[in-house]
């Protein structure tokens, strides 16, 4: 394995800027690995041939970037993991991607994902499941599974993903890397193929916390093309610091008591003790409505999805199945183009919004959302940050949960409450359980990204997680 692959993005930027490394050489090292699918992961749906030439002196210095399939990239396949968009090449580029390439990043490829970002295992992609680089019999998590697997395996130095109910944090945890979901509105959603518009946020997948800060710094800010985006107060800072003195950490009882696998719980408890040694105060707290967040989420997100996905009708782009009349064309196109999970969510969302059920389901879910957000506000009067495991288990086996939607949805139990509240959260590697990564999640009030990154950085340094086993060469021909 090339030693270039062992560089973090920040280290690579330094070497390129100092003239010790050619950006083209770095790009080729990753391009070759991504194109050969060096770990047999199915992480990419498209890989670039040549890098675009960045401006000399650009802050991201030509470091290659992998991008989740659902970000529109002009002239490049952008399919959101769906057969209904197979081969679609959009006429414009998403703002977050344009900002990063404008800052000097070069587009390395598009990464596989659950169809329309609906899933927690990446088994719902029309382009086949992604495998976990720590154990290819297991899932990488989802929905941004391709981005997570690519970064963990050293097929990309960093990647963009999106998080609606945990789709950055959960795969980051299952693949042993860092994933950050920003405050809702911090990053433009323009050009992201929409799943649930009131929840969707773009964010970074990186090998360490410093890289996450660096990538996020160039993503945030108001965009005239997304009326829900906001000016970011201040700048995203590169984290420093050696201890957590004065930091008040809260441990929500509702998200840490039941349903957490013992290995994940042990790693979590050990890290709470480490945080105390580093000077933080650690105390239990309560989010009384958090146990209902998952129910509210699985009404709100499908309801919004059922409206957003109405645009896929065989008229303007994508698949069309011929039929005698217009309605027949719509129904046949959507039947052939959408996979099972997308159909399930469209049905669930349409039902929740339908006459006679709206108040009992969608209306109540929006009220629960208010209570969940109030719970967080109350907790942040006493605590600077809250901490939970990211996912209740380590990566599970491919196929293990595909026939049980409810069991699959329970993967999101620790990540969904922050999504409903619109607050930022980061997952960092928290050691191994049975040889597989576990994740630690920190969340804070809206626009507290700098506080989150600073605490995550100190914990990362103290934990000293070694992600290199997932990058170690397993040649394409040596697949088990």
């Amino acid at each position, binding site marked *: 394995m090339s030693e270039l692959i062992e560089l973090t993005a920040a280290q690579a930027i330094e070497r390129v800027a100092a003239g010790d490394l050619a950006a083209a050489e770095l790009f080729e090292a990753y391009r070759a690995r991504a194109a050969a699918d060096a770990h047999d992961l199915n992480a990419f749906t498209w890989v670039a041939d040549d890098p675009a030439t960045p401006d000399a002196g650009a802050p991201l210095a030509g470091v290659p970037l992998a991008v989740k399939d659902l970000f529109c990239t002009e002239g490049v396949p952008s399919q959101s993991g769906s057969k209904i968009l197979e081969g679609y090449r959009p006429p414009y580029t998403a703002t977050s991607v344009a900002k990063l390439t404008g800052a000097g990043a070069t587009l390395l490829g598009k990464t596989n994902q659950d169809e329309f970002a609906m899933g927690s295992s990446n088994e719902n992609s029309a382009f086949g499941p992604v495998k976990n680089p720590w154990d290819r019999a297991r899932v990488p998590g989802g929905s941004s599974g391709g981005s997570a697997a690519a970064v963990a395996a050293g097929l990309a130095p960093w990647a963009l993903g999106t998080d609606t109910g945990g789709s950055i944090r959960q795969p980051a945890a299952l693949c042993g890397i860092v994933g950050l979901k920003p405050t809702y509105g911090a990053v433009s959603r323009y050009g992201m193929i929409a799943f649930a518009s009131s929840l969707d946020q773009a964010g970074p997948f990186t090998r360490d916390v410093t890289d996450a800060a660096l990538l996020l710094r160039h993503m945030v800010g108001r965009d005239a093309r997304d*009326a829900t985006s906001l000016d970011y107060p201040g700048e995203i800072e590169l984290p420093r610091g050696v201890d957590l003195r004065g930091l008040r950490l809260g441990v929500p009882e509702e998200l840490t008591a039941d349903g957490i696998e013992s290995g994940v719980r042990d790693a979590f408890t050990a890290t709470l003790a480490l945080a105390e040694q580093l000077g933080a105060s650690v105390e239990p707290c309560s989010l009384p409505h958090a146990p209902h967040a998952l129910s509210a989420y699985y009404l709100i997100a499908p309801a919004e999805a059922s409206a957003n996905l109405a645009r896929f009708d065989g008229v303007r782009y994508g698949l069309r199945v011929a039929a*005698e009349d217009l309605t027949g064309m719509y129904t046949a196109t959507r039947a052939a183009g959408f996979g099972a999970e997308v159909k399930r969510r469209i049905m*669930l969302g349409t039902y929740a919004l339908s006459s006679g059920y709206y108040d009992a389901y969608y209306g*109540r879910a929006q*009220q629960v959302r*208010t209570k969940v*957000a109030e719970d967080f506000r109350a907790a942040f009067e006493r605590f600077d940050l809250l901490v939970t495991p990211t996912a209740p288990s380590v990566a599970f086996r491919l196929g293990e949960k595909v026939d049980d939607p409810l069991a699959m949805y329970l993967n999101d139990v620790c990540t969904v409450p922050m999504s409903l*509240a619109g607050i930022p959260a980061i997952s960092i590697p928290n050691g191994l359980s049975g040889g597989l990564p576990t994740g630690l999640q920190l969340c804070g009030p809206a626009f507290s990204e700098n506080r989150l990154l600073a605490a995550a950085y100190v914990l990362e340094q103290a934990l000293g997680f070694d992600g290199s086993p997932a990058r170690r060469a397993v040649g394409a021909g040596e697949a088990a």
Partner: protein
Amino acid sequence: MIDRAQVLHVAKLARLALSEEEVARMSRELSAVLGHIEKISELDLDGVPPTSHVVEVTDALRPDEPRPSLPREVALAAAPEPLEQGFGVPSPGAA
């Protein structure tokens, strides 16, 4: 809980054609998921305002100034049936 007739009604609203096998599976799976979700009916939410948007945004208006949009041929480039500079579709009333 969600019977066959309801599944067919919702599928019609969603413009989804479902096979017989899918109708049966949808009825079973949606009932299981909604059975879990029903727990929110136990909460006392009287007087709680709904949240549709989590971050305060007021007057997100842009100046009403004309600007170029996508050229017609670019907008039509991915269309399954470009027709007379528009999107061709089957007749709404053919059946």
